[in-house]
């Protein structure tokens, strides 16, 4: 069993704006864990310096060494998951524990079409 895991309901990974994301977190850690944190957030990747927007964070204090917990987050209107020539915007859930550096991240797509928006290139990139 993995130390930390995020399981999404029906293994669904694409969501429409305002939909609710549901799932379960599981952990199998050493004793002495003070808390777990589950965050819903987006981040950018690509040429620009990374921006991160944390929408919501749930904290589970004194979780014990082994356990599981259901969660649900209502998703906002946006920003949509997209990928362009310079920027990609990725939504994800991230579970971390403290103390320790164990982290698990599960990427999702937020888009009305069910796929990330692909931005075409109208002309050459200018600098």
């Amino acid at each position: 069993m993995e130390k930390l895991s995020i399981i999404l309901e029906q293994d669904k990974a694409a969501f429409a704006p305002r939909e609710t994301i549901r799932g379960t977190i599981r952990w199998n850690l050493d004793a002495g864990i003070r808390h777990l944190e589950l965050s819903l957030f987006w981040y950018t990747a690509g040429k620009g310096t990374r921006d991160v927007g944390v929408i919501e964070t749930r904290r589970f204090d004194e979780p014990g060494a082994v356990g599981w917990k259901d969660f649900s987050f209502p998703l906002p209107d946006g920003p949509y998951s997209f990928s362009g020539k310079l920027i990609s915007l990725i939504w994800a859930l991230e579970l971390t524990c403290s103390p320790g550096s164990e982290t698990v991240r599960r990427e999702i797509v937020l888009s009305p079409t069910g796929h990330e928006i692909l931005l075409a290139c109208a002309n050459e990139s200018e600098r």
Partner: protein
Amino acid sequence: MTGMASHGSSDGGKPASVAGRLGLTLFFLLFFTMGSLFELFVVRAFWHTLAQRTWKKTPCTIVSSEVQERTARDAPFAWAVSYRYTHEGQSYTNSGYRRNDEASGSYSDMQRLARKYPAGRNAFCYVNPRNPDQAVLTRDSLALGLVIPFPLIFVAIGIGGAVLIWCRPAAEAETSIAAGALRKSRKSKGKSRYLAPALFALFALVGGALAYPLGIRPITRTIAAESWVATPCQVLRAEVCSHDSDDGTTYSVYILYQYEFRGQTYKSDRYEFLGGSSSGYRGKDRVVEQYRAAAHPICYVNPDDPFDAVLKRGFHAKLLLALVPLIFLLIGVSGLIGVLRTNSPAGDGATLPPLAQRPLRASDEADLLRVEGSGRAVLAPKFSGKTKFIGMTFGALFWNVIVLVFVASIANGFQRDNPSWIGLLVLLPFVAVGLGLAGGAVYQLLALFNPRPTLELSSTVIPLGTAAELSWSFSGQARRIDEFTVTLRGVEEAKYRQGTSTCTDRNTFHETELYRTSNAGEIASGQVGFVVPPDTMHSFAAENNKILWSLDIHGSIKGWPDVKESFPITVAPVAG
């Protein structure tokens, strides 16, 4: 911790290598060492100053007192004094004016001291009770204590930098994006609260410290000297002094003159209120020659203190330099006021920064994305014509003034038969950029006389996949425009660090020409309907990454700058 969201950025770059960290550590250790040495020096000097406060005030008699000429260029005169005093029944003679420091400087200042302490006068000196051989006429100023905190800034930078280099959890930031962003958001809240006020305070402090000696004093003295008495004088010595430094040789005018005022004879060596030296020999040589040739040039004497005199009074271009510290002071004080107002709870609502520049709250996100705008909106251009002109003019002035200093220096070399061809070659590209900027300023000036467009959109916010209507009209001579186009444009913009500079890359991902006409009537005013594509990205603005939508208009005018304006619009997610 629900209901809150944070919004931050991380460079996401590779952590510095061990060699890189060692190099940076050495750099910061240098800061630490220099700061510590300077701090030790200042604290030691201040300790001696404090110790002087325990020295015993003792009556003394001035034995001799005279102004002596020295060879030092910056302090050509010294005041030689000796005085006699008695301590615990034993007689001593001393010549110290200050601790470790003889009195030296301009003739006027030395003459003033000689008059204050003439031979035979009874005065007071301060005697070191532990070593009665040691005495001074004046004790060091306690103002030195104000300098103590300054080297600590370097010490703190040195320690802080070195600690940060080795304590930064770079690897963790890579693996844990959300937790890293939350941490960074909390940290930056604290940092931004103090960093800007500290910077502005530093500006104000430097400006304030320099404002009096370099700014206020020369200006007030120049004004005061308008009422000083014009008095014929005799030039005793006149020469151009040269001062060698790492940046080359600079020159100053030195004239020692003697004048009579109310039956007494005085000497002074003040030429003008703003001292210092600068490049350029010929002008100063001309001044010196003029004074050498003059039989009785006029000096201006302060009637309240006849030691005070000057040869050149009145406002001149060099006095403008006195404004530099005042500009520093103004920037610092106005910046501090602005920052404190922004940070204060009362001002928070009125001066909220854009969404991308502060941590997002859940309500912000909703505000950003909710489709509310149903009313018509008059669009504002990204940059107005005036802004472009002022920006370009300031840019051109700033660049060209700096380049001009180097041009003058090189031209000076050519005039003095010491041409620097390599310097000239290096300078040429900078001159070309300066000319380009000047041309740009002229272009923007001409563009100010273009017909001005007003754009009105049917809705302040347009959701993806919905229709909107744009109407336009021109004030001014719209018939000068030969062809007119309106384009809907979507651009991704990414900002990133490269070395020490910040770069911004843009890529146009959507471009639709909405309207094109050569008809004068349609150019003067018209309207066009359009639909924002449903399968693209809405407006998005984070600190470093943005999706920007705009309506761009282009009106071409023959033989004149074109009408080119970009009007940002907000495209929202699909209305649902």
